[in-house]
């Protein structure tokens, strides 16, 4: 087996599922200026829905992902209309606190309903690996997620570039007032954006439930990663999210593999957050040029 090739495959595999997980967080922040503190909890809810579908009805996460997207799209739409929309014109801190409260409500509610036990979603489709000759192995779980991530990215990019609603979303992200002046229904754009992102986030939870342990309090580490990747990519950038997630996945994998001594995985974490600090100081618009820089967007 070739260690370098395996490290690169591991990095790309991790980058794939990070892309799918972070996309919704980045777009909500970029378009609406809302830091979705409950992002990790929406991943968690999607993962639990996939677990339920698998354990109760035997449905593979790959197949339950689309219904979960649709259900959570509706949930996201309602949540935006009833809660987020009411605080969106207030300072950033208010919406951040509201989403923080939502995250606590979600994790504790799931704990009450499903218990605190760790779950892993078994999948026949996503189990095992392919052997790349004698060079390396390719994990099936990650490959499925990576393929879905690419499909979602292409669809989303096409939607944002080619459709009227997509262009409205980009306009709202770049200049809210100007978008309103030219007749864009900003509330509709926000509600749709939020719903779309919550749907994608929950779907990512469903697909990655075969990879990561599922439990009610699994959210915060993923929300933290979403912060890092969004800061690296620049807010709301679809291509940037892919680039930053792949970059982070590869960086962590290579450092973990090649760092001397026994602390490679720990050095990988230090490197990732060190990079975050450097990026925020030297290039706040992100390494990959998002819709706007991290420090912009105050209402």
């Amino acid at each position, binding site marked *: *087996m070739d*260690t370098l090739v*395996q*490290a690169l495959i*591991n990095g790309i*595999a*991790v980058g794939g599922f990070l892309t799918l997980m972070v996309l919704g967080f980045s777009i909500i922040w970029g378009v609406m200026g809302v830091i979705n503190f409950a992002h990790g909890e929406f991943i968690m809810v999607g993962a639990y829905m996939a677990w339920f579908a698998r354990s109760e009805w035997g449905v593979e996460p790959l197949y339950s992902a689309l219904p979960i997207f649709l259900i959570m799209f509706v949930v996201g739409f309602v949540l935006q209309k009833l809660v987020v929309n009411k605080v969106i014109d207030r300072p950033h801190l208010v919406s951040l606190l509201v989403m923080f409260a939502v995250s606590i409500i979600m*994790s*504790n509610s799931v*704990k009450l309903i499903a*218990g*605190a*036990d*760790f*779950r*892993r979603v*078994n999948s026949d489709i996503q*189990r*095992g*690996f392919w*052997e790349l000759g004698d060079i390396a*192995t390719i*994990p*099936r*779980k*990650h490959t499925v997620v990576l393929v879905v991530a690419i499909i979602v990215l292409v669809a989303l990019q096409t939607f944002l570039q080619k459709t009227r609603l997509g262009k409205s979303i980009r306009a709202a992200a770049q200049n809210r007032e100007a978008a309103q002046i030219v007749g864009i229904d900003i509330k509709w754009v926000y509600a749709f954006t939020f719903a779309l992102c919550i749907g994608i986030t929950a779907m990512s939870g469903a697909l990655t439930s075969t*990879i*990561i*342990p599922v*439990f*009610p*309090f699994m959210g915060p*580490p*993923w929300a933290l*990663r979403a912060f890092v990747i969004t800061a690296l990519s620049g807010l709301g950038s679809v291509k940037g999210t892919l680039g930053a997630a792949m970059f982070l996945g590869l960086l*962590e*994998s290579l450092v*973990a*593999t090649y760092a001397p001594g*026994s*602390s*490679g*995985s*720990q050095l*990988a*974490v230090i490197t990732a957050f060190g990079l975050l600090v450097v990026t925020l100081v030297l290039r706040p618009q992100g390494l990959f040029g998002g819709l706007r820089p991290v420090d912009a967007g105050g209402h």
Partner: protein
Amino acid sequence: MRKRLRLALALFMAFGLVAAACGSDATDVVDSAGEAVADAAESAQDTVEDVAEDAADVATDDGAEDDATAEEGADTIVGTIKIGAALSETGKFSVEGKDSRQGYDTWAKWVNEEYGGIQLPDGRYEVEIVYYDDESDADTAANLVQRLIDEDGVEFLLGPYSSGLTTGASAISEAADVIMVEGNGTSDSMFERDFQNLFLVATVASDYTKSGIEAFAAKGAKTAVVAYEDTSFPTAVANGAIKHLEDNGIEVLAVETYPKDPTDLSPIISKFRELEPDIFIGGGHYIDAVLFTNAADDVGFAPDGMLITVGPSNPKLIDELGDSVEGVVGPTQWEPTMAYSGEWLGSAQDFATRYESYWGEAPVYQAASAAASGLALHIAIEQAGTTDTAAVREALRAMNVDTFYGPIGFDDRGVNTSKPMGTVQVQDGAINVVAPDGAAIADFSYPRGN
């Protein structure tokens, strides 16, 4: 208003009781009744009717009835012993925290409902455990222990889950001179601090893998790799494992550490696959067992032997991971099949049956360790004949008893050195004890699946 009424009634009865006792020379009754009334007045927990009934029972003119009442008094509930515990209801230790709480509650429920309360010279005392959720966070656990001592006024403490949380929490209890008995924080370093009030009923972390590694060595394993989370308990287990590997002539090919809250261990497992070791040893907690197994599945890492610190002894892991954990080995503090027995709570199997009737699931060893912690405290209080900290501490130090959990006898550090550590292996979906020889109920399967 109601409290004042109780106090007035209590004082009135105390006066009446003293008068009645003086008339009959029954000094025992005076002491017993006086304390009972004082306790009632202090705690204000008994109802007015209960106190009135007690007083009516005791304040009789018949001397024979006085004696009988005195004997009965030793069996009546005269108070409550308040015990505190910070446990993880949320966060990464929520599973083990729930198991620990069910263990503590099994003991407390049995004490209160079947045993009749902890026996002291003046009567029996019910047990009340005050719980708080430490959110799997060490600082929160320490703060809550302080709160339990200062605001809730607990007399004793039971430990939180994990060494990381117990380390800080026990420092608080030590400073306040409150005894903490625990069974789920086993890191050796905690017992190198010369604490006087910390007692561990379980085996220390450095010996977790001892019988398992000896079993691997006996089957001919020659090389090993070790990965562990770089926190207190996994580090202690891994350091112990490395020592036991060397002692048994098994070469350690690589050691990898990773930070707290890992999300993917594939890079480490990929590196290990290249080394082709005979056995893999993973130190961490339940969630790490899931991640190790996931990563091994994903990259095709299948050594002849896998030993994971926490998880293989838990039926939930088999439910969740199925075939992936077949043949995996893990240490266990206790299993229902072990031939341990004692005069409290019966045998290991009796405990398991009772636990299952209470909670609808089989006990894992973390639950048994928790229940044994409560039991050790219980026995010490009875042997001391008081709840005084110094006397109970001495009773714990002198303890040498057999229980459902195994023998309990503490060394100078406060560690139970009487009980050996067991090793289990997942065999055809069942958890079987395979080492040490005295406790084994099945042959050790090596390589896995053979």
